[in-house]
């Protein structure tokens, strides 16, 4: 075994592409550890943690490309580099052979009638590039994170001045004129418009609107910080204005984590004046306040979808708190699971890829569960000391930074969740695992398929220890999505996963089991 490294000065490659190349190389039997990346402080830290930080790598700057590996003496670095070049070229030519301009300006020469720029470049470069797009009169969707609050404020104020959308930063979901952008589902056209500050929350509401027979006019993403005080809800307010003037939109749905109080008031003042009916889900926020401004408050993402569809069809919206199926049948299912546990099985593990879905799970569960550990708990005393190790009742959001350093988001690459599933299966005190399964554009082509072996192994481990592992999931996807919804659901059912029609119902089902066994 030995360390080998290679440096190429002033060569830039996309970080996600390099992560994929690293993943491919790791499959080689003679390579123990490898990192392929740019010489950023983060990558150097990763290299150090993996024992791959050679003096050469230490000396790189963020403009330099490096490969560092530990492997058998037989590993030939030239062969590895040839393989990397082939992988990089494969990534480059996997699409068609269209001309690829190098700058936004030259892209506009190819497509002068362009109307939206979608950015997923490293956040530190985003401000300058987005500013250029707004200068050119383009609407912007900014998927990148690591953009400062000050930069966000400047960009949004500038976009407002120009009357343009500036969705983001960290905006994962939008559907403009029925085109899903980044992470979004294929939703039937209809009369419900959404402005959402929570990515997978917006996906869940739009998917459930589709399931309940409704449809979508537009989905505008704002980025998660839009309703924080320094930003002031600029993009949500512009979204409401635009949807109010949009002929195809009859109902407006607003989705966000609870905003800063002054911003909540500002948004609700605008809602009060809106000519169209507005359904508001400030996830876990003050429902009475929303009601006092004449909007329909919601108690879950599913409730938001139910209410929006009811209003869109001219019905009176009612709170939806229960289950789609008969509650007696739900209780029978609960009983069947409970009967199979051994006496030491008492804990829940929630393994989420969708951040808002994890938030919703914690919100519902914490109503009756005092101690719920997480990497982003409601109260700091329940923060996991080691996020890679669950404790008692735990819900983790695997899309948070601590899990995605040097790896793609788990909605793109679910393999880390598979490993975590197996780990939970080895803990004899665990009774059940709760998880989401997000389909749609942007997501992995077969997220269920990727989890099957891990779920089977976790269940088998638990059974061999004399217990029974319950796995409960909900699929956030529609029949129109590029993944096959029916096949996804069937695959999960075939291995004994209990599927519920929404995240809220999956969590409530789990809550019923927990109340029986704790």
């Amino acid at each position: 075994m030995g360390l080998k490294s290679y440096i190429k000065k002033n060569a830039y490659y996309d970080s996600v592409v390099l992560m994929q190349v690293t993943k491919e190389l790791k499959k080689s039997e003679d390579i123990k550890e490898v990192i392929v990346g740019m010489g950023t402080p983060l990558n150097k830290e990763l290299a150090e943690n993996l024992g791959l930080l050679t003096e050469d790598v230490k000396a790189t700057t963020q403009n330099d490309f490096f490969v560092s590996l530990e492997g058998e003496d037989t590993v030939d670095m030239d062969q590895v580099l040839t393989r990397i070049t082939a992988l990089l070229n494969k990534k480059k030519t996997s699409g068609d052979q269209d001309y690829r301009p190098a700058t936004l300006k030259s892209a506009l020469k190819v497509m002068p009638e362009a109307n939206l720029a979608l950015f997923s470049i490293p956040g530190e470069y985003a401000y300058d590039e987005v500013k250029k797009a707004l200068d050119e009169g383009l609407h912007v969707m900014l998927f990148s994170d690591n953009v400062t609050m000050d930069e966000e404020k400047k960009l949004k104020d500038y976009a407002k001045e120009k009357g343009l959308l500036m969705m983001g930063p960290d905006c994962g979901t939008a559907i403009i004129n029925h085109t899903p952008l980044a992470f979004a589902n294929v939703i039937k056209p209809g009369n419900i418009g959404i402005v959402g500050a929570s990515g997978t929350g917006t996906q869940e509401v739009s998917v459930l609107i589709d399931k309940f027979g409704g449809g979508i006019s537009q989905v505008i993403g704002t980025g998660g910080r839009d309703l924080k005080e320094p930003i002031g809800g600029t993009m949500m307010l512009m979204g409401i204005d635009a949807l109010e003037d949009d002929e195809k939109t009859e109902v407006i749905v607003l989705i966000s984590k609870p905003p800063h109080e002054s911003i909540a008031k500002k948004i609700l003042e605008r809602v009060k004046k809106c000519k169209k009916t507005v359904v508001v889900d400030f996830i876990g926020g003050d429902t009475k306040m929303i009601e006092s401004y004449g909007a329909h408050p919601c108690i879950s993402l599913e409730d938001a979808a139910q209410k929006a569809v009811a209003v869109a069809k001219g019905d009176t919206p009612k709170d939806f708190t229960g289950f789609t199926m008969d509650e007696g049948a739900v209780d029978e299912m609960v009983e069947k699971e409970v009967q199979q546990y051994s006496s030491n099985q008492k804990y829940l593990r929630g393994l989420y890829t969708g951040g808002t879905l994890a938030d919703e799970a914690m919100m519902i569960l914490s109503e009756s569960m005092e101690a719920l550990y997480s990497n982003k708990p409601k109260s700091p005393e329940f923060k996991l000391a080691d996020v890679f190790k669950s404790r008692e009742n735990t819900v983790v959001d695997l899309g948070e930074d601590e899990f995605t350093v040097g790896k793609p988001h788990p909605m793109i690459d679910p393999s880390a969740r598979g490993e975590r599933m197996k780990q939970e299966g080895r803990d004899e005190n665990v009774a059940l695992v709760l998880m989401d399964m997000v389909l749609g554009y942007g997501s992995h082509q077969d997220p269920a398929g990727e989890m099957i072996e891990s779920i089977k192994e976790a269940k088998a481990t638990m059974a061999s220890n004399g217990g029974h592992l319950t796995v409960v999931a909900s699929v956030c996807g529609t029949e129109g999505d590029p993944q096959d919804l029916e096949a996804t659901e069937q695959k999960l059912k075939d291995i004994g996963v209990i599927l519920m029609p929404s995240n809220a119902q999956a969590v409530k089902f789990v809550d019923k089991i927990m109340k029986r066994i704790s």
Partner: protein
Amino acid sequence: MSKINELFDSELRVINLGLESFSEELKLQKKEVVHVEWRPVAGGNKKLRNILNQLG
């Protein structure tokens, strides 16, 4: 009509900078998209970048 409402009534034409998969998925939907082979201006050198940005 506001520019955002004009966008709602238009066919989406996208310039994609960053993740290539976003371009590929738009193409799968038969949407018009140009993928920019994006690199940091001035190789990421902040000082040089600022000067170049000011020059436009």
